[in-house]
């Protein structure tokens, strides 16, 4: 009962009334509130997608910023305002793809040190987990962009197959094929890795 009283007396913050569509429309109308609203709601999502598709990097915050700036530049083209989240994730994937291309060019031109991923802190302080993450991203680096994105969207972001297909702008059958190849490659490489094999529980992949 006390809780109900408290809630009745507490004014509901307007955010509860703002759906993704509301926020997208504010952005389309260049409302000054839009930047705060969309950042607070989706910075974590975008950061997660960028981090997991690109791997540890020192430019993470810059890339997240670029995604949101890209959103505000292109929000006029968003036809279904309620699709704010997939629209942002799509921009994030394009941003990551561009970064991966630049990274390859830099490596090809030998502007990077040795092509190895930099040592960037992760949530885990356990050195074995950090090393596992480093090796895992090295395996993901062997995939093409589409396979890499499909793998992350499906297994990290929890996307359904149809959602993954829509995000990658390919058909469902294509995404199934891509994902099957990516899964097989990652599993095969991880199984042979002494550290990662312990993680995946070797032998139970069908």
């Amino acid at each position, binding site marked *: 009962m006390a809780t109900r009283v408290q*809630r009745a007396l507490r004014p509901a913050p307007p*955010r*509860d009334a703002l759906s993704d569509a509301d926020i997208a429309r504010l952005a389309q109308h260049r409302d000054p*509130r839009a930047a705060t*609203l969309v950042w*607070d709601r989706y*910075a974590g999502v975008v950061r997660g997608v960028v981090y997991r598709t690109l791997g540890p990097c020192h430019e993470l915050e810059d890339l997240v*910023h670029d995604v949101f700036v890209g959103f505000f530049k292109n929000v006029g083209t968003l036809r279904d305002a309620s699709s704010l989240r997939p629209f942002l994730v799509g921009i994030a994937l394009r941003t990551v793809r561009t970064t991966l291309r630049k990274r390859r060019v830099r490596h090809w031109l030998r502007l990077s040190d040795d092509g190895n991923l930099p040592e960037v802190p992760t949530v885990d302080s356990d050195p074995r987990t950090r090393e596992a993450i480093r090796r895992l991203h090295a395996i993901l680096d062997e995939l093409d962009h589409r396979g890499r994105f499909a793998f992350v969207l499906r297994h990290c972001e929890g996307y359904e197959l149809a959602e993954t297909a829509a995000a990658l702008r390919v058909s469902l059958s294509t995404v199934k094929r891509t994902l099957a190849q990516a899964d097989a490659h*990652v599993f095969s490489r991880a199984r042979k890795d002494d550290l990662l094999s312990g993680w995946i529980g070797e032998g139970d992949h069908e």
Partner: protein
Amino acid sequence: MSDARRNAVDPCERIGSLLVGATPSASLQQHLEGRARLIAAIDGLRKKSRTRFALLALAFVGAIGAAALALAVRSYPRAPIAWRVESGDVGTQGYGGVSAAGVSARLVFDDGSDVTLAPGSRGRVAGTTPVGAEVVLEQGRARVRVKHRDRTQWMLDAGPFALRVKGTEFSVAWKAESETFDVWMHTGQVVVTGPLLGDALALSAEQHVRVRLHDGIVQIDRASEPSSAVVLETPDAEVSPSTPPAVRLEGPARLAPSSAFGVAPALPWSKLVAAGDFARVVRQAEADPGRAISSRPLPDLRALGDAARYEGNAALADRAYLAVRERFPSSSEARAAAFLLGRVAEEQRHAGVDAIRWYDVYMQEAAKGPFAGDALGRKMSLVAASQGREAARPLAAAYLRGYPSGPYATVARDFAP
């Protein structure tokens, strides 16, 4: 890494969990800096956009447009609001620090507004425009009185919080050491944005909000502002040994969590889900599921449904989505919940009939909704699996009419060539 992640069945899911678990979340500082950087960038975009539009307009309408522009410019207030220090010591560039033992510093603006910095406070005028000003309270307390005019745009920043003001009178305090933020409303309305407050929090006359970032607590009540004798906490270096204990905030800070005006739990589930912490949301909900289902706000309920779905907890996902539909029947989330109930039924309970029923509900309620194509596509696949390709043919044809390049188009063409 949690055992739950290690125990995921599919090896690829385990690998995904490894990546998710290793993703560092942004600190509060990073989040705020990122937001400030974005706002600055958007302002820059807006200015560029305005410039481009103005050039096009000028080229298009020529001299008539130029004349209209001149008229518009003439009718617009030209000079930024001027301000002066009526009492106290505020230095150049608008920066002011008021010693704990000194008198208040009062800044008076030409538009009739004024800001009074209490002893022990630091603040500055970040800038003024023809229609308002931005004042930054870096530490301490300020009393703000903004005169309402057409197009007033006043902003007050206190720590990571920002207050948008049209015309009102209020007091605001920010203690950097304890990361505590207070607003006492006297008249009018302000809109506060900042950590733990969601997108924005509107406050009206006589309300008080306290945010304690360390504890993650937001408290809204009608506590009155401490008297001027109860001054704000100041940095230790500035407090003389004889400073009385009254330097500590009293009154509202002493409200017990069970106070009639309540304490709102922080860390909304929608944010936890956005950060990928599904297990934590499910754990918190399962501590008292009845209360969670009956009292959580809409974004949290939707987040709970998603978190439970991702965690494979079909029963809890069903409860959350059903509660969304029951408690917020006119919301877009209620319609989306119908589709998601279908997904749970299909994927986790393997109940095809239930899934088709929910997909039908969704298509009926949101024929042009974001999941309409998926609902039709899923229904088509389920009907084909349970009743055969012939039964799925009309659905496939309908899908191809509505979504000729949708994700199920290839399958649909197979059923209805």
